């Protein structure tokens, strides 16, 4: 294994320490005529029609995750895992296009940190499913635990049953769809993205949300701090209809009964002068 010194020397040779960044603007420009490549440069080339399956009953979580990587390296684009036995951290960190099927339930932190795959889970999932998900689709046929989709950044995360508390806590993008009800503090500290609850939402929905949109088809027990009703637009309705139909969640009566909730922007406190003003008053 390379020493830290050797790695640092190589990064200097590559010019990684000389590039000047101004503010948060990256001084590398797009090249519109760049050759179209739809996956990350180091992602294995997989074929959705090449299918593999294995039984995970006697395997550890680590062994299952390594097996998925091995099959992707061999070009398998569809992988079926039987008997996941509700083990934790299964199917994590997949940064490629892939069809992944779990025949059974997952434990905590299932399919976290993924960027691209389409996952279908026939059973239930534990806490923090698809935590920090970047892209792809995850469909859970039954119920999900708390902090479902914690800090999700992109992609579609779907639970056809009910979910626990703090759904989409700290979500920074993406779409969370819940076919049933959701627990308390759903959308807590949400920063952007969309959450769709077809059933009811418990107390403090959207508490301390900074941005993003929440749609609820049922009743809301109470709204959290700075979560306010928003105006439903025709674009909202078209998007909701399309998305719910895509996952077989569209109610027979359509989407007209859905309510929309957004941030009141009372917590937007990015004003440099305000702390000084407060000091003067006090």
């Amino acid at each position, binding site marked *: 294994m390379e020493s830290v010194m050797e790695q640092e020397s190589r990064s200097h040779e590559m010019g*990684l320490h000389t590039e000047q960044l101004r503010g948060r603007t990256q*001084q590398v420009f*797009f090249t519109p005529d760049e050759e179209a490549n739809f*996956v990350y440069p180091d992602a294995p080339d997989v074929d959705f029609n090449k299918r593999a399956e294995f039984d995970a009953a006697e395997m550890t979580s680590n062994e299952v995750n390594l097996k998925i990587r091995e099959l992707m390296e061999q070009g398998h684009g569809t992988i079926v895992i039987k008997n996941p036995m509700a083990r934790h951290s299964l199917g994590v960190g997949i940064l490629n296009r892939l069809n992944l099927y779990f025949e059974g339930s997952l434990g905590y932190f299932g399919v976290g940190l993924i960027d691209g795959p389409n996952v279908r889970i026939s059973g239930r999932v534990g806490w923090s499913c698809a935590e920090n998900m970047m892209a*792809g689709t995850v469909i859970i046929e039954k119920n999900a635990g708390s902090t479902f989709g914690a800090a999700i950044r992109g992609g579609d995360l779907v639970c056809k049953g009910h979910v626990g508390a703090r759904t989409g806590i700290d979500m920074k993008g993406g779409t969370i769809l819940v076919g049933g009800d959701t627990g308390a503090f759903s959308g807590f500290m949400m920063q*952007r993205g969309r959450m769709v609850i077809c059933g009811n939402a418990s107390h403090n929905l959207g508490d301390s949300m900074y941005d993003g949109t929440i749609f609820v088809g049922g009743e809301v027990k109470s709204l959290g701090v700075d979560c306010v009703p928003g105006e439903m637009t025709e674009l909202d309705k078209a998007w909701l209809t399309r998305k719910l139909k895509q996952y077989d969640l569209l109610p027979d009566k359509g989407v007209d009964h859905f309510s929309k909730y957004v941030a009141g922007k*009372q*917590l937007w406190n990015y004003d440099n002068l305000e702390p000084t003003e407060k000091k003067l008053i006090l």
Partner: protein
Amino acid sequence: MAGKGGYKGTEIKDVDQFITGDGLDSAREKEIGQHIGYRYDVNLLPDYERVTPFLKEYMERMGWDDLNWLEDVHMGYEEGRPAVFDRNINGWVTVPEDMELPDNQQDRDMLARELLIKFQMSTRHPLVQLNKAYRKF
């Protein structure tokens, strides 16, 4: 509780507002000399009538029925220039100066999505270099 009182930032009224102006539009922004909030509507949903052939091909290749993570990608404006935020480098990537922008935000967002895919999946992306330099296993 922080930030009591009404929202004091800019309301977006024109598609070129942050290219032609300095972002200091509301009374409070003029007073403090600082723009408050985003320079684009982060909640704007995509109009699927305007999806480009390139994006359709991308969706098909990935096995998605819609734009998926790209629904959160918009054309933003940084330092008076059109730019796209790349979450992988946590920074803005500016759009080439000679590129003509469409006259509406929906088409600009589609353009931003195309550019971002090409940039992120390119071997020129900074993460590829970082990977080569620092990967341990």
